């Protein structure tokens, strides 16, 4: 019997409720700035929506999914009640309070600074304090993941940590460390000026701190999806995980190399030396490796399932796969989007190509495809898979689930492919309206209109998703069998100690951070005269 059921359900419901609120905002934004709508009379509304949509989708929604899923894994992979349940509820409360503290000023138009903050633009302090509270709540989760794993290790000496837990803890350490960058920016730079204690801020240094967080946060978002690839998909489709060892290595690689590569978000910035830009781009190339390993391992695992079901031939096993199973459909659609989104990422990672697309709509299209597409579709899959275990009720609207997954995929493709294209045409980001009548940009109109259509399909898909979950809350009660994660083809015989713990990998992560970020930050702090006046937003007389 496990005791974190309500905890996990609370996290996931709040996550999906916030997702459900932010999703239509996104489509409204797309519509407002498209040729289908006249120029909005007060552009501030648009930027307010962008701030709300970004803050919710980047800081609230994925954090809660990771936390909830992490608690689920803790109890079901370690097969014992979670330690620290009360602390977990405290962490959840901090996230909820933080979300409210952040969203209220945004909703009132006092913090239209976008989720990337962008000092010297400064909004109401409650916004930033809210974000800090959300992060602190998530750090409680990190501590609990670690404590639970180490207690289990102590009680099971010499035994390999179950892979789902190992991966979850890796993800939590990654998050804790990457959040430090934005935390430093918020605590030591932004909040003091938002509260009026100082009136100048070093915008360049703030951007460097933010870049520390900005890249690895996407790997934090990705963790639940990748954990699901390895630990849910093979079991759900009746197969086996091809390699437990390779899985551990992939997550270890993420832990080390996801972090110290953020300056590829600052390739065009003037405050960072070119040597560090190069260093970061090389390590960014490295972070493609764990994804390539994952693609192999998961495809192999899926092939095992296909062959176990009687599939034959080089590709014939594909037909034998359980396509009517939402998990199978979800992972396949996810991999298609991962392929395209990942290719876009390869373009962004080197300076010469990055300069062609930086801050054009290509970038926005890219992260919607890879995060909103490949990753979020796996969040849906996770929810569908564990929901009966959370609610104690059946979840069998399989037709609806498949329709929801297909509409999410189709909507995402229709939304983001034209979006990438207008980026290549040079459409700049984050404008409340565009003059499509002018021949210079008229060519962009058709693509933007197509994206509006894609977004509408996504809203429909989001509604379907919530319908499925709500149905799951009101369905007849059931006793699901004990939850099982996937099993490796060959359980690890002699697992190297290095793949069962984190000391070495955390050491490398911190060392690389010092090498890649230490000097830029230290020298920026030491350089006088780069603090500039704060520009407050949301002031109206």
């Amino acid at each position: 019997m496990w005791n974190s059921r309500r905890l996990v359900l609370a996290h996931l419901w709040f996550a999906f409720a916030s997702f459900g609120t932010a999703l239509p905002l996104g489509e409204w934004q797309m519509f407002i700035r498209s040729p289908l709508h006249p120029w909005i009379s007060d552009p501030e509304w648009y930027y307010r929506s962008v701030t709300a949509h970004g803050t919710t989708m980047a800081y609230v929604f994925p954090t809660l999914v990771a936390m909830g899923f992490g608690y689920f894994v803790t109890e079901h992979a370690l097969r014992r009640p979670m330690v620290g349940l009360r602390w977990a509820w405290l962490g959840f409360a901090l996230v909820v309070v933080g979300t409210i503290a952040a969203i209220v000023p945004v909703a009132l138009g006092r913090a239209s600074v976008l989720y990337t903050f962008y000092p010297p633009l400064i909004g109401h302090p409650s916004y930033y304090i809210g974000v800090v509270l959300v992060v602190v709540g998530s750090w409680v989760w990190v501590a609990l993941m670690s404590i639970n794993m180490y207690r289990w290790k102590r009680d099971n000496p010499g035994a390999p940590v179950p892979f789902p837990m190992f991966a979850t803890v890796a993800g939590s350490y990654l998050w804790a460390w990457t959040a430090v960058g934005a935390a430093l920016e918020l605590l030591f730079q932004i909040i003091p000026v938002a509260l009026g204690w100082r009136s100048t801020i070093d915008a360049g240094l703030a951007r460097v701190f933010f870049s520390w967080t900005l890249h690895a946060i996407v790997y934090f978002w990705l963790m639940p999806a990748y954990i699901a690839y390895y630990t849910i998909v093979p079991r759900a489709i009746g197969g086996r995980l091809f390699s437990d060892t390779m899985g551990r290595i992939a997550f270890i690689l993420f832990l080390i190399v996801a972090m110290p590569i953020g300056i590829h978000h600052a390739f065009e910035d003037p405050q960072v030396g070119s040597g560090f830009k190069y260093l970061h781009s090389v390590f960014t190339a490295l972070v493609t490796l764990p994804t390539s390993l994952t693609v192999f391992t998961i495809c192999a695992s899926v092939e095992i399932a296909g062959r176990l079901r009687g599939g034959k031939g080089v590709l014939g096993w594909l037909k034998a796969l359980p396509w009517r199973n939402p998990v199978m459909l979800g992972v396949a659609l996810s991999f298609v989007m991962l392929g395209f989104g990942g290719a876009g990422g390869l373009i962004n990672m080197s300076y010469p190509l990055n300069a062609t697309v930086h801050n054009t709509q290509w970038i926005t299209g890219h992260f919607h495809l890879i995060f909103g597409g490949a990753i979020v579709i796996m969040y849906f899959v996770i929810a569908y898979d564990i929901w009966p275990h959370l609610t104690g009720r059946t979840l069998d609207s399989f037709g609806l689930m498949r329709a929801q997954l297909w509409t999410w995929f189709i909507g995402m493709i229709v939304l983001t492919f034209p979006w990438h294209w207008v980026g290549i045409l040079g459409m700049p980001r984050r404008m409340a309206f565009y003059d499509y009548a002018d021949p210079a940009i008229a060519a962009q109109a058709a693509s933007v209109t197509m994206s509006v259509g894609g977004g509408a399909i996504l809203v429909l898909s989001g509604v379907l998703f919530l319908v499925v979950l709500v149905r799951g809350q009101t369905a007849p009660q059931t006793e699901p069998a004990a939850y099982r994660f996937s099993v490796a083809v060959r359980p690890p015989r002699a697992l190297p100690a290095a793949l069962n713990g984190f000391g070495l990998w955390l050491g490398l992560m911190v060392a690389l951070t010092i090498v890649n970020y230490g000097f830029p930050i230290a020298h920026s702090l030491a350089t006088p005269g780069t603090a500039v006046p704060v520009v407050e937003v949301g002031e109206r007389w």
Partner: protein
Amino acid sequence: MSHLSTSDEGADRGERTERRWATAAVMILALMVVVATFAALYHGAMPQSRVETADPRTLHLGGEFIESNLGSALEPDGSVTVRAIGQQYSFTPSCILVPTDTPVTFRATSADVVHGFLIDGTNINLMLVPGYVSSLGARFDAPGERLMPCHEFCSVGHEGMWGRIQIIDKAAFARMAADQRRLSCVE
């Protein structure tokens, strides 16, 4: 599970395939790094190699970015230096003039908040961060006119921040430069 063979031969084949895949992945990404490095070298596609500072509060009072010193300057060695500022919500000069077939260096900074600087159809793509000077070298092959939007959120007037750049024949530019020390196509 009866026909799931965990025979060593099958496992070894699987591991070999996995190793080959991992090796291929590493080689591909090494190749990408090498290609990016050589593109940097042979097309001069490199970020600026210096960090320079400038105080946004006093840009208009003295120094390189006062308004009369902005615009395109023909240097003694034949190259052109373009100086510009970004501010809420326009660039100055709002129309930049450059010649063809000449090394051009853009030098720009922000007078207030973070702005972007993008010349449509080119790789000239910069962030303007107040407190720092951005610079980039470029070369234009053919005459024409291009849009020059700000591509970073700079608060509520961002959607109105579009400049232009005109590329004119090198000789025509030189004739104009004989009369004026700082050129632009602002009317």
